[in-house]
């Protein structure tokens, strides 16, 4: 009996292999893709691994044993913690302001044909494509010339500046599929322009606005080059980490990096789950 069962089990896959022509190309491409993914994750693995390294001195370069102690006190370095806090606060401010301003630009592009459209368009592209080192140095030049004290304020000014185009582009992409009749319909039904925006336009483009805001937050949080030019004495997380590279980055950085990575995963998974849930919810509503 057992032998027979084994035979049938074996027989099946063989049959399938024969049925489908076996080709080298069939596994090469997926194999390559998975190798790429491995390559993409290698530094992340290293980061996470060394968050558990039981290092004793200043250097967290060689594996010296497993420990959880860095996770007990991830905020043990006051200057690192305050750098993280200022990063989060500049990024939050930068996100809020650039999301509003960028969305307004996207709306203008979506709704109106106006003089200067192509110029603004070119400025947006230039901004996206311009090198950070050029923008950073230009901003520094201006701030020095204009006697603007460098610090938190100038970081926010800069971060908003380089986030606006990304927000505008992202929201515009969302608006591209937006039926202008919807706004007209709202207006037609007695909604003032503000009501129209709040009740119709915003709810519909909201996923795009959220995506734009997250993008803006991410690039503000992660920016090193421009921020380093205009930060003055203010330390942000990337600036602190970059400064610390000279001596060896303490394991707390790995811990915080791991948290950020997990946070990113969590947000993505939540988004995906929310989508699935919403779709099923809609399906259920339809059946009711």
């Amino acid at each position, binding site marked *: 009996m057992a032998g027979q069962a084994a035979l049938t089990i074996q027989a099946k896959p063989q049959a399938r292999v024969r049925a489908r022509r076996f080709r080298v190309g069939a596994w090469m491409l997926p194999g390559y893709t998975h190798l790429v993914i491995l390559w993409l994750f290698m530094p992340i693995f290293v980061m996470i691994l060394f968050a558990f390294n039981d290092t004793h*001195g200043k*250097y967290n370069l*060689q594996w010296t044993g497993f420990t959880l102690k860095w996770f007990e*006190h991830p905020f043990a370095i006051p200057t690192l913690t305050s750098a993280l806090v200022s990063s989060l606060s500049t990024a939050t401010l930068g996100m809020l302001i650039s999301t509003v301003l960028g969305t307004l630009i996207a709306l203008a592009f979506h709704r109106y044909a106006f003089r200067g459209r192509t110029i603004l368009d070119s400025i947006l592209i230039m901004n996206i494509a311009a090198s950070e080192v050029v923008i950073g140095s230009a901003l520094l030049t201006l701030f020095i*010339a204009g*006697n603007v*004290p460098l610090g938190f304020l100038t970081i926010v000014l800069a971060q908003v500046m380089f986030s606006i185009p990304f927000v505008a582009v992202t929201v515009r992409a969302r608006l591209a599929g937006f039926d202008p009749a919807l706004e007209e319909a709202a207006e037609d039904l007695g909604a003032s322009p503000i009501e129209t925006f709040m009740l119709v336009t915003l709810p519909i483009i909201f996923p795009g606005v959220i995506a734009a805001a997250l993008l803006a937050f991410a690039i503000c949080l992660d920016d090193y080059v421009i921020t380093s030019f205009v930060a003055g004495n203010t330390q942000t997380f990337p600036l602190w980490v970059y400064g610390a590279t000279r001596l060896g980055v303490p394991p707390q950085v790995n811990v915080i990096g791991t948290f950020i990575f997990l946070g990113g995963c969590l947000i993505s998974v939540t988004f995906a789950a929310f989508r699935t849930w919403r779709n099923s919810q809609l399906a259920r509503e339809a059946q009711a």
Partner: protein
Amino acid sequence: MSDTDRDRPSYLDPSFLRGLTQARFSRRTALKGAGMLSAAGFLAACGIGGKTSAPTSAHVNWVWDKATKAGTLDFANWPLYIDTGTDAAGNTTYPSLEQFTKDTGIKVNYSEPIQDDASFFAKIAPTLQQGASTGYDIIVITNGIQMSNLQLKHWLVELDPSKMPNFFKNAAPRLLTRSFDVGNKFTMPWQSGFTGIGYNPSRTGRDITSFQDLFDPAFKGKVGMFAGNQDTGNLALVGIGVKPEKSTPADWQRAADKLKQQRDGGIVRKYYDQSYIKALAAGDTWISMAWSGDIFQANLSAGNNDLKFVIPVEGGLIWTDNMCIPVGAAHPVDAITYMDYVYQPEVAATLAEYIDYITPVPGAKAIIEQQAATEPDKDTKAALLGTSESPLVFPPAGELAQTSYYRDLTTSEATQWNAIFNSVIIT
């Protein structure tokens, strides 16, 4: 602060800088840079309006008459350049600073933004140029171009000698006659150190003694040099047998040519900033220009207790990092209180035990020996003795004689120096 700052009389005693040939700089000249873009028309309002005042000796009184103790202090230092501990919650603490707070009631906001002199100077310079406060009461700057510039630009508060009794009592005699701060008007040393050669004997396979070892083809691609051109340039001068302080631009060029050989021969792996120590510890370099205290620190780290530091037979460099008060500092009294505070032997001893650079207070040695004598724990005792006996912390006179200070440079010399050595380093 900027209001009072504007009223502040300018001062300058040009004699403090050896070789300084330029005319005095008035505040107006100094602020010209701030108006540099006025040609563009949109910057008319920027700070050209600073008052010009003749230098006056009244300066010292001017700051210190008005200033009072504020009970707080912003201290900008280099990374890992102070004693640290860990509290119950695992947070990093600075015991000597806490002790200071207990003793004086002054709370210290301690930060470590200084990675190297040049970039830190470049960072605070625009602020100072604007006549604004850097936000720091104490900064730690190495003798060298930036220190000269700070003084040239009148960006340091002249110290009040009456507020620095410990300094005059306990500082090493050699520190009272520094060429870059004649009369101790602007600075008090924080620590000094040597620039020499660090190496990993297990990798090099032999002891390193000479500057020439940095040129050994056997170490091809495994040699680290400094990206800071003061260290690299001066060490190369010493290496080719020229005393830096007596060197001429022709010597600089010869030194640079020597360094170019090393570079083009593929011997140098990279021109490092402070990160050299990481490379040395990781084995990426086997032999490297190094600062004395770092080697000790690196050996504290697990798996790296075999690094060695040597002052080459040709001679090494000695430098001094100096505490100073930038103009516009909000809490000068608190600052000078702290600067003098660390000149107590007990405090100096605490710092020396941790930092392992040359302490400015020779009297600390006796304190550490005392502590070692009464220390019950064997390891701790050995560590204390290691510090008190270390020639890198309490260098004997012979060792000091073997070393040179950086070449003092005028502004125009600095430009020449930068051009010559940057052409080696920046490739």
